[in-house]
């Protein structure tokens, strides 16, 4: 028994290391001096730590080109787009949809169909979405990206929340019915409050996927800066080739900086995420 648990611990440690290594590598790259970044063989433990990749001589993230003068506009765009898309998709679409699917349509089949939708690769819809967004004259705007992100995040959140609404005791809703609440009030004042862990899980997952999304951001808002809307992943791409050179130090520093919100969210909301993804699974 003890042997087994040692083995499991070892295996888990190995898996964790595999996941954590890229994060570690990004972090030390951001903290290395220019020569150590490019040294061969690679240096795993930098001999000297510097913050110059983050800030030096008035330059943020070692800006070597005028397109990388700072991340603030991107951060603003990213934050607003991610928050708006997340809130609309969770509260206005996923929660009401999940509730009515569970309580009124009672269709497990439809729930599975929605889950299936989330498994289709995003790239499949690039062209149709580009055309639709273009037709709505929303290219290079927040709204174009928001519309797309909503349609990508809503199905998964709906499926996730269906499990939670399923766990709301029916008698509580019936008590509310007898107490005089209208169906809308029952949803808003009772059931929605009881699925709070699920709502939080959905919000975090949606926010992270909107924050990290690159493909659609590239297609729908790719025009030279300053465009109407460009998110953080696009900002990071601007480091990759600057005059035929990879600005690794700046890229790593900017990467660390931009992943902070998702990291903090993830750590803070870990317990909700675990509960959300295990407890709220749809049975059957």
């Amino acid at each position: 028994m003890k042997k087994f648990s040692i083995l499991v611990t070892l295996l888990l440690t190995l898996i964790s290391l595999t996941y954590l290594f890229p994060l570690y590598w990004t972090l030390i790259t951001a903290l290395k001096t220019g020569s150590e970044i490019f040294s061969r063989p690679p240096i795993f433990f930098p001999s000297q730590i510097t913050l110059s990749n983050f800030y030096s001589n008035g330059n943020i993230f070692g800006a070597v080109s005028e397109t990388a003068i700072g991340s603030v506009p991107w951060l603003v765009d990213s934050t607003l787009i991610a928050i708006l898309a997340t809130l609309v998709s969770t509260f206005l679409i996923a929660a009401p949809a999940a509730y009515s699917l569970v309580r009124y349509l009672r269709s497990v089949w439809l729930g599975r169909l929605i889950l299936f939708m989330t498994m289709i690769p995003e790239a499949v819809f690039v062209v149709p979405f580009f055309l639709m967004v273009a037709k709505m004259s929303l290219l290079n705007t927040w709204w174009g990206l928001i519309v797309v992100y909503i349609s990508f995040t809503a199905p998964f959140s709906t499926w996730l929340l269906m499990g939670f609404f399923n766990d709301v005791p029916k008698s509580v809703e019936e008590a509310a019915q007898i107490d005089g609440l209208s169906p809308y009030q029952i949803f808003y004042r009772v059931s929605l409050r009881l699925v709070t862990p699920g709502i939080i899980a959905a919000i975090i997952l949606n926010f992270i996927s909107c924050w990290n999304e690159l493909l659609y951001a590239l297609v729908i808002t790719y025009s030279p800066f300053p465009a109407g809307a460009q998110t953080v992943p696009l900002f990071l791409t601007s480091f990759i080739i600057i005059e035929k050179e990879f600005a690794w130090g700046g890229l790593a520093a900017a990467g660390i900086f931009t992943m902070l919100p998702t990291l903090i969210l993830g750590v803070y909301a870990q317990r909700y995420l675990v509960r959300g993804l295990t407890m709220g699974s749809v049975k059957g």
Partner: protein
Amino acid sequence: MSEVVIENLTKKFGKTVVLDHVDLKIDAKEYFVLLGPSGSGKTTLLRLIAGLEDVTDGAIYIGEKKVNDLLPKERNVAMVFQNYALYPHLNVFDNIALPLRVRGWSKEKIKQKVRDVSETLHIQNLLEKRPKQISGGEQQRAALARALVRDPTVFLLDEPLSNLDAKLRVEARAFLKKLQKELGITTIFVTHDQAEATTMATKIAVLNRGTVTQVDDPYALYMKPNDIFTAGFVGSPAMNIVQGAVKRADSELQFSNEDLKLTLGNLTKDAERGVSMGVRPEHLTLAKKGEGLDCIVSNVEPLGSITYVTVNIGKTSFIVQLSGKLDLEAGTPAKIEFDKNNILLFGDDGKRIDSTATN
């Protein structure tokens, strides 16, 4: 305070008939119990009165008004659920206040009313707590408070005591009875526990498989059950019921099966239809010697003030209730005597034959 009338009510779930042409009249201010085993349709009947289920056929009246098509909130009924169904995300105060808030009461009035109700139910010191932080008995009172806060005309209770432990249950029984008397609200209480029913009710309706078998006050139900189902269901331990036949021997009637022959005394001719006999444990006596039928003691259960003794006559067994301690042991022979005035006879349709009890 209104009466509730149920006329020819039928409820089907798909093809399953849950309630079959039920007629009931529940007087105003009555403490009315729907008693039946699980699956008898008693909870469905309560939910129909509450408006949580749609009527398939028939009518429900609350007061003078037919309520078939009214929403639960339009019926002004209140209901306490088996698991209390408190709102877990609200504290006790907000739980009680919610029905008033959605009715647009002012903050001041709500505060006053909630305070009044929680004083009646002795939960005024729990108002800040969440349902999870209070005990089962307290949750039950909170649920009662939420139900009573809007002065309902009919009060519906769905097995509200079954989640309490034995001691609390006895307390809650007395408390509910007293509360109902004070408030004078027409109350319909669903339970499968016949002791709960007989201790609280002013009137009991017994349900079996979707039909009402008898409506009576507790004592009448116990002493004169209409049929063999009610006879067996009401009373604990259950009535001894034995299959057999009634025959006339000389001038007297005799109940017999392969194990026993029992003289019933003078009865009307109707009694000859009897195919089963019922006798309650307290109407049997047991002695080491003397008159009566031979039997063998098979089990002795002393409960302190009374003792239940199971005896066998051949393959037929009886439970006898005796007072005090007994010096009989399992396996010893004894004599059993029947109180002839309290023997009930049932026909082959399961109905009690009326001639027996009076003669």
